[in-house]
């Protein structure tokens, strides 16, 4: 795109947003008034957005890792995250932890649940790759994609079936599809208060734990991919599979490892969202998956830092839209931002800038 075309497009988009925005809650004077009169609300929403965004980012990493290595959009990934949440809830129940447990008493069960949810989702993802995607590796691109949609349906129905097993789950509604209560186990110590800061902002140890866990996963993944032997092999396979084979890298093994890591991240994210939101439902994988996939595309699919950035960005946009625009239009706003970014950077924020064909 030429520079003047970009400028023109930008003006056109800005004009449409200003013209059509008010329908979707974009009432600038009201928003300005709200922000000025209650600045804490803004900080509070940014905080919520950051935490949700960090969880979205962890799911987005699963999409981006897999896309980076085999160019497959793994539609089942969001549902795997949902299964991670269900596994966590069931495991906590099996360890005898419910809403009334103290944090001290639930540290060990949470830790064991973390290991269990991570392992099960990692294993499930590896099995999915082995049986649903690998046989189609040399088939036309559409074939594994359809296979992934099929796996997504299977996972969702497992979640639905699981939700009907009342013996395992504290059910909020009456049917299998109803949301499930997830015990609120993390401590609620208001950090700002205990630091002696007077403020209405609610930032507790619960938020801190979820945020730190999510950030630790992202940093850990980045270090793994940059500096370890298998991490470098993953990058090599992603950049040139043929060359990687010639170097003596077992490509099948590295692809399986990628699914292992992506699945493990989804499982961990499932536990984190349960502990943070305290409610889970079998359709959560679809919604979160859509946002996470959008985050991956926004950041530049295949790019790890991009997925993290995109996740946090989408978390922030959702939180701000929920507060200031209109929660009904939040998804529309997310996709509007996606469209705008893709118009100007077709490869995403940090993606390879796609060469324009003449």
């Amino acid at each position, binding site marked *: 795109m030429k520079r003047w075309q970009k400028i023109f497009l930008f003006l056109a988009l800005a004009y449409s947003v200003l013209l059509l925005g008010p329908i979707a809650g974009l009432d600038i004077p009201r928003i300005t008034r709200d922000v000025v009169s209650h600045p804490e609300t803004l900080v509070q929403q940014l905080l919520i957005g950051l935490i949700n965004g960090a969880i979205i980012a962890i799911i987005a990493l699963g999409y981006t890792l897999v896309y980076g290595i085999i160019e497959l959009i793994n539609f089942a990934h969001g549902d795997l995250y949902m299964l991670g949440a269900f596994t966590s809830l069931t495991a906590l129940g099996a360890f005898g932890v419910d809403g009334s447990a103290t944090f001290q008493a639930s540290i060990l069960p949470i830790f064991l649940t973390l290991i269990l949810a991570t392992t099960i989702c990692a294993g499930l993802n590896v099995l999915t790759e082995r049986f649903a995607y690998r046989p189609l590796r040399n088939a036309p691109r559409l074939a594994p994609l359809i296979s992934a949609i099929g796996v997504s349906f299977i996972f969702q129905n497992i979640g639905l079936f699981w939700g009907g097993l009342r013996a395992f789950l504290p059910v909020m509604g009456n049917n299998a599809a109803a949301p499930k209560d997830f015990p609120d186990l993390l401590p609620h110590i208001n950090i700002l208060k205990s630091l002696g800061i007077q403020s209405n902002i609610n930032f507790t140890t619960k938020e801190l734990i979820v945020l730190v866990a999510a950030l630790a996963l992202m940093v850990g993944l980045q270090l793994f991919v940059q500096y370890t*032997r298998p991490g*470098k*092999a993953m*990058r*090599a396979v992603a*950049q*040139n599979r*043929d*060359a*990687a*084979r*010639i*170097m*003596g*890298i*077992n490509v099948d093994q590295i692809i399986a490892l990628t699914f292992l890591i992506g699945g493990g991240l989804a499982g961990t994210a499932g536990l984190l969202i349960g502990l943070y939101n305290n409610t889970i439902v079998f359709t959560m994988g679809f919604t979160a998956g859509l946002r996470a996939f959008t985050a991956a595309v926004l950041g530049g699919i295949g790019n790890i830092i991009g997925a993290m950035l995109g996740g946090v960005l989408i978390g922030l946009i959702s939180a701000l839209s929920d507060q200031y625009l209109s929660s009904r239009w939040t998804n529309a706003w997310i996709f509007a931002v996606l469209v705008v970014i893709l118009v100007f950077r077709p490869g995403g924020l940090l993606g390879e800038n796609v060469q324009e064909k003449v």
Partner: protein
Amino acid sequence: MRESRREVQRHYRYRAQIMLEVTDVHTYYGNIHALKGVSLLVGQGEIVTLIGSNGAGKTTTLRTIQGLLRPRQGTILYEGKPVDSLSTEAIVRLGISQSPEGRLIFPRMTVRENLEMGAFSRRDSLGIKSDTERVLNLFPRLRERINQKGGTLSGGEQQMLAIGRAMMARPRLLLLDEPSMGLAPMLVTQIFSIIRDINTQGTTILLVEQNARMALTVAHRGYVLQTGQIVLAGTATALQSNEMVRKAYLGEI
């Protein structure tokens, strides 16, 4: 090519000197019969070149040797042991590495990381360190670019990196697929002189080339491949003066 085979075997008085023995190899791409009974020998310490025009099957031959393609028929012996059913990982570990056609550099990895990937089959960090030095001495340009991403290098630098990366496996047999492709004449001369240096330092080389003139000046022996079959074999000098080679591959007469 029974004749040349006997001739070549006479050339090696001891079988132990034969490093690679490819016998009657047939390789297919689906239904496409790409190699139709290729046989060739590479002796310890030699530079052997495989010349032929585009589509003759040169790349297919190298890929089959390295286990990237499976021959449907025929055997490949490396240092006397069959390797035609081994995985590429195992073959690289045994000491056969390749600088592939089109270089296939990892574009978003630095030069140093690319070299590291070349040593993926090894675990001896001291040896890897000294081999990195050796490669960087062989290609000073790579030392200047050590922290640059592979994708930002020029064609010639990428070719050096591809060869250097293949050297990092510390191969006993180095497969080079068209190292001169797309390079300016001066660079071609430089690359070929380095190939000769690598060989004199003890690495056996199987060199695939369309640039027959250059290939025959560095090689000891050569084979001519035509539509999946070896049609001619001999010493480089003999091939250089062969009527058919001069006409078809050296552009003379």
